């Protein structure tokens, strides 16, 4: 390194000091998304949110800003940064961000916020929650019917009520379809890292398969990628969740419990654009099209007509109210 180079670099640094100002370009709305720690390519929950935002961009030409958290402590700063920039609406993904949002939202009363998967009770926040247990009930039925060994498994992320509610729906659905079926349950961890640890997910799935499970549902975000991988590697069936994960390992993913976070994000953006945005709780289930099970070319050969009929019948029953899937979060129990 000679002196000349050093000097030229110093000169470049000095010249660039006068700084341009970054401002939000004036447009109708300037939306933003804050993804949770899994990142927007987690192949799951966040990715679904990303797809919704992206679809909005394609259809309306309105660009959005996004931020992926590296750790939960960043959440508050990210939300506040967007709000300060004048972003509106701001959608935050994941229950982990609820505390941060509850803190930031009152500071920007004119900004519209939305949070997915948790309720934040503020006049400028829309809380989108899903009735996932309705979806896991259906995939539980399908898993039970697809199982040859009489044992199925589920790998959850963290041991929190949200995941308990889903595992409960899964078990109830499975027992409904095949009485006496054995359902193995494992949780990955106790911290946020549990959502992003595919190696551990694969370990747990491998253990469950070793114990006889031949269908394993993942409810663990990024960790679930490892679950599906392990199931495919072992020649067993996995079940995806959140996004449609049927295509990850064609022929080895029985189905996916699809949670349309994309729809929630798209709707929130769209409502903000056309003036129909409302604060409060939006609960999405089978009836609203927020939850569903995935049936496409990837798993057409895995789902027999009998299975499809049974799942569709149960789906209609739930929508019509003839079946009520027990909600773990109501009373903290899972009556089997």
């Amino acid at each position, binding site marked *: 390194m000679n002196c000349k180079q050093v000097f030229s670099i110093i000169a470049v640094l000095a010249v660039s000091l006068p700084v341009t100002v970054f401002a939000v370009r004036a447009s109708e709305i300037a939306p933003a998304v804050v993804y949770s720690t899994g990142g927007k390519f987690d192949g799951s929950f966040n990715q679904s949110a990303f797809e919704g935002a992206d679809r909005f961009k394609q259809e309306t030409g309105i660009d959005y800003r996004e931020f992926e958290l590296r750790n939960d402590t960043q959440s508050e700063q990210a939300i506040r940064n967007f709000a300060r920039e004048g972003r509106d609406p701001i959608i935050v993904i994941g229950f982990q961000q609820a505390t941060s949002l509850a803190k930031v939202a009152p500071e920007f009363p004119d900004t519209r916020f939305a949070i997915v998967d948790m309720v934040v009770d503020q006049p400028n926040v829309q809380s989108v929650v899903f009735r996932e247990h309705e979806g896991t009930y259906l995939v539980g039925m399908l898993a039970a019917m697809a199982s040859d060994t009489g044992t199925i498994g589920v790998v959850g992320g963290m041991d929190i009520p949200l995941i308990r509610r889903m595992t409960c729906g899964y078990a109830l659905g499975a027992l409904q379809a095949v009485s006496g079926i054995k359902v193995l349950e494992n949780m990955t961890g106790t911290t946020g890292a549990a959502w992003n640890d595919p190696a551990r997910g694969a370990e747990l799935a491998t253990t469950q398969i070793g*114990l006889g499970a031949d269908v394993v549902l993942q409810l663990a975000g990024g960790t679930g990628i490892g679950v599906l991988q392990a199931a495919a590697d072992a020649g067993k069936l996995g079940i995806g969740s959140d996004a449609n994960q049927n295509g990850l390992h064609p022929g080895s993913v029985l189905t996916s419990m699809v949670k349309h976070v994309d729809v929630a994000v798209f709707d929130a953006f769209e409502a903000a654009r056309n003036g129909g945005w409302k604060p409060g709780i939006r609960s999405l289930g089978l009836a609203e099209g927020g939850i569903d099970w995935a049936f496409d070319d990837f798993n057409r050969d895995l789902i027999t007509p009998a299975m499809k009929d049974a799942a569709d019948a149960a789906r209609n029953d739930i929508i019509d109210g003839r079946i009520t899937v027990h909600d773990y979060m109501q009373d903290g129990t899972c009556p089997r």
Partner: protein
Amino acid sequence: MDNFELVILLLDATLRTSTPLILAALAGMFSERSGTINLALEGMMLGGAFSAAAVAYYVGNPWIGLLAAIGTTICLSLLHGFACITHKGNQVVSGMAINILMSGLTALVGIALFAQGGKTPSLDHGSRFQPITLPGADAVADVPVLGSIYSELLSGHNILVYVAFLAVPAAWWVMYRTRFGLRLRAVGENPGAVDTAGIGVVAMRYRAVMCSGVLVGMSGAYLSTAQGASFLQDMTAGKGYIALAAMVFGKWRPFPALFACLLFGFLDAAATRMQGVILPGIGEVPVQLVQALPYVLTVVLLAGFIGRATPPKSLGRPYVKER
């Protein structure tokens, strides 16, 4: 039968989780026995894991990925050597620097190459190390006990698992039965004497850190192309430090280090499965307790309460030639 099956599964998982630890602990051993502290195992493992996954993805061959991983970790070892051996910099600081650097650099390059938030794309079957069925494993699978030990526990791992276990006696042989090993240990104990005998201390230490690089590169590749199917940001999650602890726990010797790795691997495998499990008579054992156990044990050992861990005498001291 059910319990037996559980034990087999747990031991099977132990082999899988301890493999990267064994390779990294041996890597640490080569470096430290020659007098160079290697706190950079964590960062090197991460660098190896990233290179392996990225290259395997591009060329579709895990072996080339493995070579890339080893190449990367050798470069990092040389960097470590350049700082600590050539410029007599602080070995602890250099190690920490490499760890921090790689944590950022792998993610940064990952985002630049693949735009998936620091991940590499999932590898397909051909780009990963596949399980190997040992000869006759299927035939004896139905033989009670021994058959299932052979077919379930010993067979069906990928090549790197076997490599790791073979690396232990190999490392022992190199370390204690070759002239190279003798000299390597000597520069770690008494570099002055080695120098007097006309052997270059600097060259010897460089060779030692390069051996370290080769081994830790394999452990990185194992994480991303054998056990997993892609690289993830900070996927080593402290395994480099656990390996370091295992090396210390194994008193800087290959076979004791192997047992330490197996023990720590077992604890990890057990912790994963004990989430929310209630043991009869004991109640629910906090998973965190099991997770912290390797570190606690290492501290207890270091404190001299169970045996004594004596590091190589010149560990951490740059060699300054007497004039």
